Structures are given as structure tokens and as C-alpha cells.
């Protein structure tokens, strides 16, 4: 761990929620909760199409449906590691992308959720290439976007 520079995770998203860890964790694995937030804006995730078997080897499947035109985006992943209520790791067999969700207790009954995605589309398979992601692709993207605005 320590010999890798920080930020080896290619893409990292963090948010603090004003709710206890057990509850936030449950939201991530129970269809009746997932349906409320899994689809981004303008996209819903009907509860009947969400399958969660939160144990190593278990499935994590959803169908996201566009509110605008009804087009469907199925997602299919398999759990690799499940440590209730601390950590969920799933991988998408289609792309090899792995998502690690970490739930940390904060004071005041708050919870930090950290989403770390590795193996961003098939890339960075070799250790050498992987090391290249260290400065984190999303910061690179943001930087380039800023540059593009200046040009």
C-alpha cells in the first residue's frame, strides 16, 4: 500500500452523508433503497429489476431506464468482496471495471462514502500503465477541460 503513491485509484468520488453507516450501507444493497438513487438525473432504476446478492460471487444487476425515451441501460456486476457495513467491491465482467465502495463512520452520526473505480475501460492492465493512472484521470480530465476553455 505505502509504496504506491496516493490516488492509485483511477477515479475516486467521495461524499459525506448525514446518516449512520449501517443505514447508508443498507441503501447500497437493498433494491427498495437503490431504486431511489441508482439512476442519475433523468434516469430511473425500477426496484423489480434490481438484483442484489451481497456476498462474494453474488450478482448486482440493475436496469436503468431513461425517463425521456424509455431506453434501457442494464448494468451487470458480480460482488468480489463484502464486509458489512464497511466495504463493497464489485466488478463488471463486461468491462473488467472494479468499483470499491468504502463506508466510514464519522462523528455526529455521519458517514463518508468513497467510490473508487479501477480498470477504467480495459486500460491500465500492465503495472507500468497502472502507475500512470496515479495522478488520477479525473483530475487530468478536469485540467484539460479548463485548458480547452482557455484556448
Amino acid at each position: 500500500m505505502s509504496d504506491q503513491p496516493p490516488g492509485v485509484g483511477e477515479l475516486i468520488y467521495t461524499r459525506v452523508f448525514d446518516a449512520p453507516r449501517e443505514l447508508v450501507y443498507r441503501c447500497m444493497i437493498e433494491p427498495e433503497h437503490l431504486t431511489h438513487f441508482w439512476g442519475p438525473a433523468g434516469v430511473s432504476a425500477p426496484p423489480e429489476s434490481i438484483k442484489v446478492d451481497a456476498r462474494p460471487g453474488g450478482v448486482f444487476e440493475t436496469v436503468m431506464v431513461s425517463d425521456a425515451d424509455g431506453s434501457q441501460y442494464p448494468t451487470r456486476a458480480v460482488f468480489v468482496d463484502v464486509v458489512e457495513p464497511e466495504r463493497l467491491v464489485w466488478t463488471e465482467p463486461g468491462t473488467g471495471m472494479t468499483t470499491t465502495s468504502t463506508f466510514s463512520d464519522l462523528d455526529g452520526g455521519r458517514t463518508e462514502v468513497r467510490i473508487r473505480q479501477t480498470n477504467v475501460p480495459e486500460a491500465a492492465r500492465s503495472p507500468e500503465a497502472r502507475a500512470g493512472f496515479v495522478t488520477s484521470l479525473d483530475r487530468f480530465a478536469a485540467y484539460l477541460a479548463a485548458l480547452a476553455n482557455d484556448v
Partner: protein
Amino acid sequence: MDQLDATFTALADPTRRAIVTRLAQGDATVNELAAPFDMTLPGISKHLKVLERCGLISRTRHAQFRPCHLERQALDAAMSWIEENRRIWEQRFDKLDAHLRDIQRAPAPPETASQGPLSPEGRLPGKQLPHAERPSMGERNDP
């Protein structure tokens, strides 16, 4: 997806990212690109070939110094994937935040529904409802 994969692989290298960043500001020759790096020209050329293969850059064939040119579309495809992914998670987080507020504000189950609104005796009316099987939203009948 192949094109995108190739682009991500190419961008996985910090030197190549630096080259792309430099080219985002305008075309440059191999010599100009090599200057900021402690690297031989053949070393830089190798990186340029990778970037060229995945379509991120192009090089003018006829000009003497063959300046490198950033191909915006290829870069934009990779960048928009990243941005889209970030957007999805931010919106999920926003929705999860709202959902957590909702469920934590929701009325407690019947047995423990003790925080009667307004009146201190508020817990009595709730219990007296004949159809108290399921907690109804209509319990808060303000006088």
C-alpha cells in the same frame, strides 16, 4: 470501445499525458516536446507513436519538422467518458442524500410513534384509530 480502450491505455502514461497537455495549447515539434523531459528524442518518439496509433495525435507528413497535432475528437471521447462517469456518481450521491433525509424524517413505526406533533397527549389519538394496522400519514389532524 476499442478506440476508447486504446486512448485510455495511451493516457495511462504520465509522459504521454504531459505531451497531450502541451499539445492542447498548440502544435509542437518533437524537439519542442522533448525539451521539458529528461528524455532522448527516440524516447519521446516512442510515446508519440503510441499517441499516433490510437489517433490522439497526428503528424504532418510534408512539413520539415513534422509538428504534432492533438486530435481533439479522440481526446474528447475519453474525456467525456470520464466526465459522464463523474456526473453519474455525483447525481447518485445527490439522490442518495435526499433519500437518506426522507427516510430519516419518516414517521417512526406505530409502537414507537411517540413524538406526537403539537399536543403533549398526541400519542393517544394515534392509538385510538380503528385501522391502526398501518401508520397513516393522516394522523396529524391539527385542531
